[in-house]
């Protein structure tokens, strides 16, 4: 349970006991069940963050200083200096495990420095011997040597650096060797740590940060890694990815949490909205499907097979999660999660029939329904944020269509004013309807 909620519950207990709703024994049982709220949590976070930043800056500073004075050293001296940051980091890591294994701040900051030391050692050796090796190879070597640190030191910030590193690697790999097929196995190396953190405490800051890292990494890397031998397959893959992210939260989280603590929900819902908006444009549906299959030079056919596997896996997971939503009768979630079904249907129409108009109409209707349903859900649950989200969806769609069509400025201005009045009116109605508000 979220710590904030436990604090609220504990604050309510004396009042409930006074009113005879709960007995003192029941109150003790509740406190025993949820445990004590540890104080000093904020201080620990500050120590950890400052520790990480300090280690990061020291590591970068050492690299810069060595780079500046590089010319003064002979080659043997440079070789020794190249290995020194790495050896120091290893000794520090060993000392941390032996003496400060319980300290999160020590583990996180030393492991951050350790990871930078590995990269700097390899880079300094490359400079010494004028190695013109590819950036992709450098990043891959650095990341693969660094990931064990996460498990030995039980540290999470290196996972974020790792996810950033492999995302960059995928971009360079596509440019240099025309594919990034290795991305999925190396991405999987970070997942056990994320899983372990979630298992320990689904509502902790650590888990939230890791989930954010994973969500953003997936959203960015998927497009880079996809080979694109079949044009437009990204439409199905991304729609399934966003649906999976969105629907996963109901499996993971038992209670309602804010957008920060539930990145899968936030990224998934935002992705579904933005992606659907993009698919209301004609350019997204042009020249897609197997009729335009790409076989020339830079398209790797083996990596293209991975695109199909990715699409299949994501669609299967999305459908399974949809079935769960149907069983739970969560029709609002179903509406968002049904995006892959709409996409596949549209893709088939467009891919085989070369009909771009039908998908555009379908997605305009879908987006409009999504906006109305979101507003309605917000009204029903008295959540102003959800109502406004629904109105943003509607407004974005109208805005997009306005730039598509030939409407005059005056008419557009009037409609924008009306929509703005609609937003304000909805907020006033909602506030007035909220229980306890006079």
């Amino acid at each position, binding site marked *: 349970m979220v710590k904030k909620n436990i604090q609220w519950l504990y604050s309510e207990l004396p009042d409930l006991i006074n009113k005879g709703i709960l007995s003192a024994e029941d109150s003790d049982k509740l406190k025993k069940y949820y445990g004590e709220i540890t104080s000093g949590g904020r201080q620990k976070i500050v120590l950890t963050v400052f520790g990480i930043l300090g280690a990061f800056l020291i590591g970068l500073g050492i690299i810069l200083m060595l780079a500046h004075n590089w010319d003064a050293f002979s080659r043997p001296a440079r070789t020794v200096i190249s290995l020194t940051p790495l050896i120091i980091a290893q000794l520090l890591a060993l000392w941390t495990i032996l003496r400060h294994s319980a300290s999160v701040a020590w583990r996180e900051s030393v492991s951050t420095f350790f990871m930078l030391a590995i990269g700097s050692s390899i880079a300094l050796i*490359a400079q010494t011997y004028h190695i013109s090796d590819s950036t992709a190879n450098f990043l891959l070597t650095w990341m693969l040597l660094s990931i064990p640190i996460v498990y030995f030191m039980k540290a999470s910030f290196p996972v974020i650096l790792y996810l950033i590193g492999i995302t960059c690697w995928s971009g360079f790999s596509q440019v240099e060797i025309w594919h990034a097929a290795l991305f999925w196995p190396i991405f999987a190396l970070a997942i056990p740590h994320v899983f372990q953190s979630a298992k320990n405490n689904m509502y902790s800051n650590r888990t939230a940060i890791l989930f954010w890292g994973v969500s953003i990494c997936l959203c960015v890397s998927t497009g880079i890694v996809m080979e694109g031998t079949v044009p437009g397959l990204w439409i199905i893959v991304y729609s399934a990815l966003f649906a999976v992210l969105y629907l996963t939260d109901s499996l993971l989280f038992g209670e309602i949490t804010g957008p920060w603590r539930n990145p899968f929900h936030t990224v998934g819902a935002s992705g579904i909205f933005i992606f659907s908006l993009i698919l209301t444009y004609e350019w997204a549906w042009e020249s897609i499907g197997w009729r335009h299959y790409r076989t020339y030079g830079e398209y790797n056919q083996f990596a293209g097979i991975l695109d199909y596997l990715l699409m299949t896996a994501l669609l299967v997971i999305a459908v399974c999660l949809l079935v769960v939503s149907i069983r739970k009768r969560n029709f609002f979630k179903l509406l968002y999660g049904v995006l892959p079904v709409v996409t596949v249907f549209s893709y088939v129409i467009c891919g085989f029939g070369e009909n771009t108009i039908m998908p555009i109409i379908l997605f305009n209707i879908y987006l409009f329904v999504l906006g109305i349903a979101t507003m309605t859900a917000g009204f029903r649950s008295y959540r102003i944020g959800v109502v406004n989200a629904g109105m943003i969806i509607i407004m974005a769609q109208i805005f997009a269509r306005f730039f598509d069509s030939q409407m005059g400025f005056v008419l557009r201005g009037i409609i924008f004013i009306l929509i703005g009045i609609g937003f304000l009116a909805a907020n006033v109605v909602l506030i007035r309807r909220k229980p306890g508000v006079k």
Partner: protein
Amino acid sequence: MKNNKYIIGLFLCLFAVQIAVPVYMIVNKEKTLVLGKQFKFRTVPVDPYDAFRGRYVALAVQQDSAPVPGDIKLVSGQNVYACIEEDKDGFAKIIGVSKGRPKEGNYFRARVRYADGNKVRLDLPFTRYYMDEKKAPAAEDAYRKHSQKDKQDAYITVRVRNGCAVIEELYINEKPISELWGHNT
């Protein structure tokens, strides 16, 4: 206590692997520099907008393509071995490529940029000469001036051994850059 020993043991194994990679790089390059055969490669100017100013001199070699026998199919991004020998002027010439490690002769690893029928264009592993960021722009300027068609007297020496190629020195007007700008190699 037993757990601690186990963890320390695993840590030491990890450290050994992490040290082994940079040490392997150092040993491999040092052996090539000490025991490898020296080749000279003529250089050509690099488009200044491509060069990363300040950290290294961006290099380009005059010959970066090679003939390909008809029965060999190459794809972009593929690793190959470029076979070299000296021409009559004493400069290196790429005479062919091989998918597998050749049994004899001098060769180094390169990557296929693109293959076009019976010719292949290669990405060579010596495109950067690292030096002090304050000296690199002037050195790069001099290198470019001395790599023009009418004044081509810039070249690099590369040591080649068992598929590994390491830049030894950059020469401008027959003088090593270490003498011109006091740079340590």
